[in-house]
C-alpha cells in the first residue's frame, strides 16, 4: 500500500473493517458449516443439545492440541510431535495410575513434566542449533512414539494387568478416569470440554495479557527485528514448544481417560487435524498473526463438520472428499488482505 493509499485511510471509518477481519472470515466458514447442519439435520438430531455436547467432547482433545499448536505457529514454527507426545503421556498416565497405583495429583504432575520436557527439548534444538522446526519436531514425533511403544511394551496399558505368570488381573478403573469422562452441570457439558476451555483461557492469557505473548508475535512477525530489539528469542521459543508439550500432556491424560487405556498408537494423525484447525481459524502458518479465539473457531468448524457428516452417516469416501473441499473453501474465503 502506498503512502497515498494510507492517507486515504485517514477518513475511512474503522467499523467498515470488521467484515474483512480474520475473525469475521473465520466465523463465515463456521456459519456456513452450521447452516449445513441445520439443513441436513438428520431428522432433528442437530437440534438436540446432546449432539452439540458430544461434538464438543469429541473435538476437545484436538482442541487442546490446537492450543499449543497456536502458540508455536504464531512464533513462526510448527510442531509435528503433538500426537506422539499425547500417546506417550497417555501411556505414562495409565501406567502410573492403573498399574503402579501412584496417586492422581503426582501422576498428573509427572505427565505434565514429561510432556513439557519433550517440548522443551524440541525447542532447545530449534533455538540453539537452528534446526528447522519441521525437522526437529518430526524427529521428536518419531522418538516420542517409539518411546511410547517401548514404555508400554507395544501393548495398550489397560485395566487388564498382565501378571508374571501370563494371566490377566482386572483392576478397577481409577477415579480420575471416571471423573474426566463424566458430564457435569446437569449432564450438559463434559469435563473434557471444560478442560479444553481452561486451556483456551490459559493460551489467551499467554498470548494477549503477558509480555511473553508479545514476544511470540514479534518473533513470528520478524525474528531478526525482534532479536535486535532485545527480545530473548531463544528462551521464548523453548518455552513455546514446552507449552505445546504441556498441552499435549493434558490431551494425553484426557485421551487415556476416555479410552480407559493408554494406547501407544493413540492419536495417529492428530497433528494434522490440530494444524488444520489452527489454519482454518485464520492464524497464518508464516507466524506473527492470529490468535486463540480464531483457533477456537477453527476447532468448532471442523468439529461441526465431522459431526454433521457423522449424524448423516456419510460414508468414509465421501466424508474425506467433503472435508477437503470445506477446508479449501474456508481458506479461500479467508484470503483477503495479506
Amino acid at each position, binding site marked *: *500500500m*502506498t*503512502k*497515498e*493509499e*494510507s*492517507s*486515504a*485511510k*485517514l*477518513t*475511512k471509518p*474503522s467499523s467498515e473493517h470488521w467484515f474483512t477481519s480474520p475473525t469475521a472470515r473465520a466465523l463465515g466458514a463456521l456459519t456456513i458449516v452450521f447452516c449445513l447442519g441445520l439443513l441436513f439435520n438428520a431428522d432433528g438430531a442437530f437440534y438436540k443439545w446432546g449432539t452439540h455436547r458430544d461434538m464438543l467432547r469429541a473435538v476437545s482433545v484436538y482442541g487442546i492440541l490446537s492450543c499449543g499448536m497456536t502458540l508455536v505457529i504464531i512464533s513462526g514454527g510448527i510442531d509435528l510431535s503433538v500426537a506422539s507426545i499425547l500417546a506417550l503421556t497417555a501411556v505414562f498416565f495409565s501406567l502410573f495410575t492403573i498399574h503402579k497405583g501412584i496417586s492422581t495429583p503426582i501422576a498428573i504432575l509427572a505427565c505434565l513434566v514429561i510432556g513439557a520436557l519433550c517440548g522443551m527439548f524440541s525447542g532447545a534444538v530449534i533455538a540453539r542449533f537452528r534446526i528447522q522446526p519441521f525437522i526437529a519436531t518430526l524427529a521428536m514425533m518419531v522418538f516420542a512414539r517409539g518411546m511410547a511403544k517401548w514404555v508400554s511394551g507395544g501393548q495398550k496399558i489397560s485395566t487388564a494387568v498382565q501378571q508374571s505368570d501370563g494371566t490377566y488381573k482386572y483392576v478397577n478403573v481409577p477415579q480420575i478416569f471416571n471423573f474426566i469422562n463424566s458430564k457435569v452441570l446437569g449432564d450438559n457439558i463434559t469435563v473434557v470440554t471444560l478442560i479444553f476451555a481452561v486451556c483456551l483461557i490459559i493460551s489467551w492469557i499467554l498470548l*494477549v*495479557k*503477558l*509480555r*511473553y*505473548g*508479545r*514476544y511470540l*508475535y*514479534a518473533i513470528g*512477525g*520478524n525474528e*531478526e*527485528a*525482534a*532479536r*535486535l*530489539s*532485545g*527480545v*530473548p528469542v531463544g528462551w521464548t521459543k523453548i518455552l513455546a514448544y514446552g507449552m505445546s508439550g504441556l498441552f499435549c500432556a493434558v490431551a494425553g491424560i484426557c485421551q487415556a481417560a476416555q479410552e480407559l487405556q493408554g494406547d501407544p498408537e493413540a492419536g495417529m494423525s492428530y497433528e494434522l487435524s490440530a494444524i488444520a484447525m489452527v489454519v482454518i481459524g485464520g492464524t497464518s502458518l508464516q507466524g*506473527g*498473526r492470529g490468535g486463540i479465539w480464531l483457533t477456537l473457531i477453527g476447532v468448532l468448524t471442523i468439529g461441526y463438520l465431522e459431526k454433521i457428516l457423522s449424524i448423516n452417516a456419510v460414508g468414509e469416501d465421501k466424508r474425506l472428499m467433503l472435508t477437503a473441499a470445506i477446508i479449501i473453501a474456508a481458506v479461500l474465503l479467508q484470503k483477503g488482505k495479506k
Partner: protein
Amino acid sequence: MIGQQANNSQLLKMTGICKSFSGVRVLTDAQFELRAGEVHVLAGENGAGKSTLIKILAGVHTDYEGQIFLNSQPVRFASIHDAADAGISVIHQELSLVPSMTIAENIFLGREKCRGLWLNKKEMIAESRKLLAETGLDIDVTQNLGSYPLSIQQMVEICKALAFDCRIIVMDEPTSALTDVEVEKLFTIVGKLKKSGCGIIYISHKMEEIYRIADRITVLRDGQFVGTAAAEELDRGKMVKWMVGRELNQQFPRHKSAPGQARLKVTSFTLPDPAGKPMPAVNNVSFDVRSGEILGIAGLQGSGNSELLNGIFGTYGSSAHGSCELDSRPYKPTTPANAISRGISLLTNDRKANGLVLGMNIVHNVTLAALKKFSPLGWLKPNSENKAAAEQKEALNLKAASLKMPVDSLSGGNQQKVVMAKWIETSPKVFLLDEPTRGVDVGAKHEIYELMNKWTSAGLAIILITSEMPELLAMSDRIIVMHRGSITAEFDSEQATQEKILHAAMGAQTN
C-alpha cells in the same frame, strides 16, 4: 547534467489523471509528459502522489480517470503485462527479487527463456553476464542473490528492468542502496539509455542526484501538479518550495552543543567478518564519542562502518576483540538485549528487514525494545503502552490515521520515526544511527535532523553513518572515515570537505 540528447518526439503524455482510494482523492488532475531521450525527474514529498501516478502508468491501478497517450496514441492498460508489453519497465524502490535464487534466475524471473518446455539456463546465464558487464559489474551470476550485499542487489534489480526492450523506464529511488561508485555506473547506463531514445522517469529524494541527472523536473504536491521546468531553470530553493509549499532555507539545521564527557570509548576494536571472509570486517579501530556530540563515520561499500556499529551493539554476539567503555564503565558486546540494557540503541539501515515487525501495529512496534517497562511482572499494561505511543507520535510528528494501524501501511519517513520512537523508549545513552534518512522524504528528513539536535542537547551521544555527503558534513561534529575496516582519517566538521572524505574513504591515509 548528463549529455543532452533530447529529440523532441513525445513518448508519453498523461493528462487529467484522477484517482481515489475509497472516496479519498490521491491524485487530482495530475499531468506528466516525457520525451524520448530525456531523463525526467518526478519529485515530491512522500504522499504527493508520485507512486500512484507511476503505478497507473505501469498498469497496477486500472481504475482511474484521465488519459494516457503513448506516442500520441491513447492507451489504457488493463494489467501490468499490458504495460510491460507496451514497453514500460519499472525499477521498484522495494526490491522485487528472490534472495534464494541466483542472479541469472532473478533477472529472468517471470520471463524465463525456454526451449520448448525446458529452461534454457545456459542462455540466461550468458545474457545476464553480458547485461551485468555492460553495467560494469563483474560478479558470478550463478551465485545466490542473497549472498550479495544490498547495493549489488539493487544493481541487479536495475539490470532486470533493462533486460527487455523498453521505451520508457521508471526508476524509483534506484540509488538508495548504492555506493557512489555504483551510482556512477547507474548514471552511465542512464546515459546509454538516453542515447538509444528511451525516456526515463526518475524518482529521487537526493538533491544532488536530481540536479546531476535531470533534464526536466516535474513536481507534484498533495496529488496535484505543481509545475514542470528544465533543470537548469529551476533552482533548488524553488524546487523545494514547490514540493513543500514553504521555503526550506536551512536544509541541515545542526545546532552544535558543547560536547561533554566521553560516553562511549572504543579501543582496538576488531571484529571477524560475520560472513566468514578471511579479512576482519573491523580492524583495530579506536575512537570515542562524547555526550552531546554527533560523530559521523564515513565509508564506501565494504568499509566496515555498518559492521562496526553492529559489532558494538552485539548483533554478532561476542565475537569481537578489544575493549569498550560506556560512561567510564567497562562494556562488552554480547547480545542486543545486553546492549539495550546498558543504554545503547542501534537504528539499522534496513528497517523492513530488521527494524520493524511489519505485521504489528505502531504501538507494539514502539514498545517492543522497552517492553519490560510496560509489563511489570510480565503482565502487559496496554494503557501505558498506548500513552507512550501517543506521546511519541506527538514528539516525532508521526503522520498516521490511528496508532492501531499496522506499520507496513505507513510511508517510509513515518516508518523510520516509529523505529526511532522504539529506541527512544529505551532511554539510550548512545544512539547508533545507520542511514537514518534513507528512503525518507524531505520534510521528514528535516524533522529527523531536528530530533537529532534535540537528543544531543539532552546529552545523548550519536554515531551517524550516512552515504549522503552533505548530510554527513552538515550534521556531524566530528567525522572519522573508514576504509576496509580501518580508520583512515579523522576530521573536525570545519576541516572536512567532500573531496578529503572521499579520498580517505578510498584508502588514502591522512592520519
